[in-house]
């Protein structure tokens, strides 16, 4: 069983893998931040900004994908025990889902007549997306803490889980609008997609929770 996280690598190899993981995390975080910007631009009916943020988001997700492939390649060619390799691969794959679902949410948002939502729902949606961004930020801190301060990583993983609960609660708030609002400006199909948009945002938070489980398992072994 592995006792240390990344401690088995030669200094040069260690730095290389660590830098790549760090870059992957940064790209993922930026993806979610641009999703938040997109929601803001959509609320303000600023189509140019909405498109610009989607382009950024989409490009970042592609770069994250590319980097994930490189990390996996690197991990396969670097001398590692199977367990250590699995830990890192699982972590990187799990983080990648966060970027994937952010892009999915952005893809749907791009075609929605979001500006037609009422102000109350717009505000609830912004809360939900902001809570999701916070969830990703704390997760990134948890993964970074794994390297130098595993006990802190564990408490941050708990925090991620609590934030995921908050996102769930905000999702429930948003859903109440589906049962009571009329959604003028939305065709039935657009309404189905709006629901999918919220589900995609919630899935981003779900993947933060799943990744926090991986952090916990690795962190405990390192602690």
């Amino acid at each position: 069983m592995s006792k240390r996280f990344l401690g088995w690598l030669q200094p040069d190899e260690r730095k290389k893998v660590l830098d790549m993981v760090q870059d992957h995390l940064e790209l993922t975080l930026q993806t979610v931040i641009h999703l938040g910007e997109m929601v803001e631009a959509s609320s303000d009916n600023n189509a140019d900004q909405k498109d610009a943020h989607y382009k950024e988001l989409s490009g970042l997700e592609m770069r994250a994908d590319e980097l994930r492939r490189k990390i996996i390649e690197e991990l396969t060619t670097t001398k590692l025990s199977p367990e250590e390799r699995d830990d890192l691969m699982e972590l990187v794959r799990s983080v990648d889902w966060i970027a994937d679902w952010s892009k999915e949410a952005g893809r749907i948002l791009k075609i929605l007549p979001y500006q037609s939502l009422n102000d109350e729902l717009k505000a609830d949606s912004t809360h939900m997306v902001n809570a999701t961004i916070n969830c990703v930020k704390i997760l990134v801190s948890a993964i970074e803490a794994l390297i130098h301060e595993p006990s802190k990583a564990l408490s941050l993983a708990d925090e991620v889980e609590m934030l995921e609960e908050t996102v769930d609660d905000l999702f429930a708030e948003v859903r109440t609008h589906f049962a009571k609002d009329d959604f003028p400006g939305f065709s039935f199909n657009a309404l189905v997609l709006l629901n999918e948009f919220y589900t995609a945002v919630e899935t981003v938070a779900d993947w933060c929770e799943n990744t926090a489980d991986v952090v916990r398992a690795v962190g405990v072994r390192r602690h």
Partner: protein
Amino acid sequence: MTYEHLELTAEAVRNLHEMVKEDSEEGKKKLMGEIDKAEMKADQIRRSLITELSIRELYPNERDDLMGLVRAVDWIADWAREAGRLLLVIPFSGFPDELRETVEDMCRENYACVKLLRDCIYELRKDPRKALEIADKVEMLEEDVDEIYSRARELFIQVESPELKRGTVILVNEFLDAVESVADWCENTADVARAIAVRVIQR
């Protein structure tokens, strides 16, 4: 801990069954509170179990098996909670009796399914062959839920009401799907239990 996790999950599924039978909003909220409590406690146990399994010196296979089991059971409680949350928002009591009864049937079968799953996991240690038999029964019950789900969908598309919001239609569809996912995850968990049982028998 695994057993406690299972008990809490079964409790969440039982309360969902109670919730679909409940007409009053107050009663529904109270039962939702119970589901929330059970699911959150189950989550806590899952976290502790992951920690425990990571610390203990176990064979990687064994650890992966148990982690897989705990995560799969956790999905059952998650879906029960998701169904409960949706039920709280949709005007379920205004739906035709036949549709409501069909959903009740689904939830009753879900509870039967999770109870069987609990028996299956208990048997893993005592009698893995019996665990395999029970896993088959879980699968059969899941198929029953699938059948009832088809009936519920059939009834659902016949619902016509001018008072029904378009958003509600989407949520009801998600609710039915969430109820069915409870049984799906019982089946998935039974698959994990089956793999463990086979490994134990071969030892």
